[in-house]
């Protein structure tokens, strides 16, 4: 237990360091973008005085380190600054967009969990048949090989040109009403979900196959335990760690980075907010959205690591390989 505690503290410390490093990279990368912010926000026709006035208004005339300090201290308190373009606090816009992105992520994730995992277990248990194995590999491989922008574009066209129950053209008007939101997001979630499903099925299958050849499973078979019991008690438990790791990664990816699907379907989520912000050098917006994505990833992974050590104390004892 002591090892677990120490492992947890180490993980938390590492998380803090990573978060700090990430914030530095984001902040300075944004300021390295050529062209600055004024050209876009003010347009090329603006005068020098207008540019300076804008710089002062957003504190962009201060030394960079001072700006960084303001940003980090603000961000910790939930203040991400003001959008240069809309002149509205970024947090206000995020509060509207985060629910959309989270809903989309949950929908895609449920495809991974509800379909991907059983599919992976099933194909993993039957992997001895060679043709079935090849088929499973090809199908799962295909699922992760079709880029979202291809699948998304095709889906958009198919659904809009044929009368269907999905509406794809008016996501900009998404209201906060959960039922409407879910219905409107079915198609983009399906596009995202297909990939998540295939990746999960692949990993689950591999994990199951790996466990099947482990000595304790062989021993269980030798003891004459029923197949159902073996699967539940030996296979699933031991296969769950890599699958959980993958699901964590998928969740983080969905929360911060469904950039392409959000762009294709014009979904007012966090990913599309980042892309438009980047195109306009809207510093506060880019910083906040990229930070959010990174934080999601870091926190989820840390939580999973700690959880893994609770499930399997060997992880903590080994000191980790990260």
């Amino acid at each position, binding site marked *: 237990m002591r090892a677990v505690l120490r492992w947890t503290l180490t993980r938390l410390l590492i998380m803090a360091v990573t978060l700090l490093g990430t914030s530095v990279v984001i902040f300075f990368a944004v300021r390295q*973008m*050529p*062209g*600055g*912010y*004024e*050209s*876009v*926000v*003010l*347009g*090329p*026709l*603006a*005068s020098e*005085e*207008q540019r300076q006035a*804008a710089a002062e208004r957003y504190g962009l005339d201060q030394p960079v380190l001072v700006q960084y300090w303001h940003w980090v201290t603000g961000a910790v308190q939930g203040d991400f600054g003001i*959008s240069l*373009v*809309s*002149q*509205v606090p970024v947090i206000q*816009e995020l509060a*509207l967009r985060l629910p959309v992105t989270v809903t989309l992520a949950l929908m895609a994730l449920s495809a991974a969990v509800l379909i991907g995992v059983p599919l992976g277990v099933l194909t993993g248990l039957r992997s001895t048949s060679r043709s079935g194995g090849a088929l499973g590999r090809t199908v799962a491989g295909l699922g992760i090989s079709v880029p979202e922008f291809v699948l998304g*574009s095709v889906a*958009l*066209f*198919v*659904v*809009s*040109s*044929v*009368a*269907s*129950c*999905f*509406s*794809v*053209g*008016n*996501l*900009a*008007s998404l209201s906060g009403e959960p039922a*409407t939101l879910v*219905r*409107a997001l079915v198609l983009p979630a399906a596009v995202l979900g297909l990939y998540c499903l295939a990746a999960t099925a692949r990993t689950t299958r591999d994990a199951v196959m790996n466990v099947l050849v482990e000595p304790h499973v062989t021993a269980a078979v030798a003891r004459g335990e029923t197949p159902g019991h073996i699967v539940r008690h030996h296979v699933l438990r031991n296969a769950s760690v890599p699958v959980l790791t993958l699901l964590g990664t998928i969740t983080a990816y969905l929360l911060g980075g469904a950039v392409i699907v959000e*762009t*294709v*379907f*014009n979904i*007012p989520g966090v990913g*599309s*907010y980042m892309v*438009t912000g980047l*195109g*306009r*050098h809207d510093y506060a917006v880019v910083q906040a959205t990229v930070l959010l994505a990174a934080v999601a990833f870091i926190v989820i992974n840390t939580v999973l690591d700690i959880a893994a050590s609770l499930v399997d104390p060997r992880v903590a004892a080994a000191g980790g390989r990260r």
Partner: protein
Amino acid sequence: MNVRQSCTAAAGILALTLTGCGGGGAEPAAQAEVEPGYLAVADDTATAEGPVTVQVDYDSQEDGGLDPQLATTARSWSLFGLVYETLVTVDAEFGFQPGLATSWEQPDETTYIFTIDTSAQFSNGRALTVDDVAGTLERLKDGVGVWAGQIGPVDSVETLDDTRVQVNLSEPYTPFLAALANSPAGILPMEEIESGQVDIATEMLGTGPFVMESHRQDQNWVFSRHDGYRHAGDVLITELRVDIVGEDATRQAALREGSTALANFSNVDALSLLANSGATMYSQQQSDFYYILINGLREDSPLNDQDLRFALNAAIDRQALSNSALAGESAPTGVTPSNLPGACDPADLPSAGVGAEGAAGLIEASGYDGEPLDLLVYNSEPVLGQMAQVIQQQLEAAGVTVNIEQLDTAAYYERTHSTVPGNFDMALGWYAGYGDPAMVTRWWNPDIAGFSAAFAGSHEDLNGLIDQAAAESEPAAREQVFTELCHTVDEYSEMVPLVHRPGIVGLNPDLLTMDLAANEGYGDFLRYLPTARPVSAG
């Protein structure tokens, strides 16, 4: 939400798609004029009231927020024009019609007297006064907005009585009414602004047909009908949503499935792509035009040689450019937009008669050393990349190697406009063409348009012609000045007009019927939205 109830089985979707993919017809489906000057007219028999949703490609994005006087882009003008009214308006023939001014007279060349419509009121219920009008014009003239450069040499504004306002110009300025007709000259509630009751940068208070309810940047605008509007009886749209939808494909999908009644497209092929979709597609001839900057100001650049610049200009075949990159939906223009009255004929330009071989000869004769030239485009308007590739081919044929660089907007402006002299050889962009041929020519004088100083020299003869073009009012003499002006711009070849920027608009006739002018000067395809008529879903 407009969700179709009929759910089609997945197999059906697939089958229909496969059959739907067979035809590859790419015939432009643009509509001809149905009435002189109009591509479409509202159907008077539609009398239903109701909400309407419109989708546009990008949002207004202004440092001045909602202040119309600081608005720099056509999109802002369209949106602000739904709330604010101008003294006069342009009609489909670029003539002028009453707006907030019921009539106007011009006792001499430099004096205008406007009689205002006292029945107009702001959406807070206060009646319009002459002080609002005078104050607005003063504010505009003294302001830092781009439109201060278009409103002309306004010397003073005075109120004559409760209904009349007099504007004194310091010299004749023919485009004055055209400049007054655009949203940046919209009449503001000066009383509320001066008392601090209204912050015009964050809220809107106008006399126009709509009242702004909400705006979420890059998402949507919601407007409601202004019941106190002078012609409120003509407005049948009770609630107007303007959704911002960045991807062309998504807007096409929305128009097809009926999620939007009206949408604009940046890709001219939307005309053919949506031909059989149930939507009606229109190609508006806009006075806006694309230009190529040929930077002659950078030290040691071969482009300092005017002969080489002219040769490059002459090597660009505008018609071929329009055919390849704009599906033939455009036409060449000189610096005076060719669809405006009195504009010069682009076919008569010195560069137009040179031809491909002639241009190649000129390039060789200029002693150009074969050093590759860069051509900058920004990636938020994909057609610029298409045009750049066509120009690259044309110049290649004339013996010039061109490297295309696609930049994001900020990096583009940094190199073309903010750095002086500009850090580039050539660049593509576009200007709004406005409603009078003399207006856009002012950007060719770097003393008026500071942003041109990065790549264009200040030339006495050219500046003189630009002033003359603005001052001359007699049509025949004007036309002559325009021709001379076009030729001079063509010869300097620093900022070279290419072809018009077409405006592609799609309308779902099952949802909305409205007027749409064949020619448009301010990129405002929402111009006649207030009198548009929702079609009852019956």
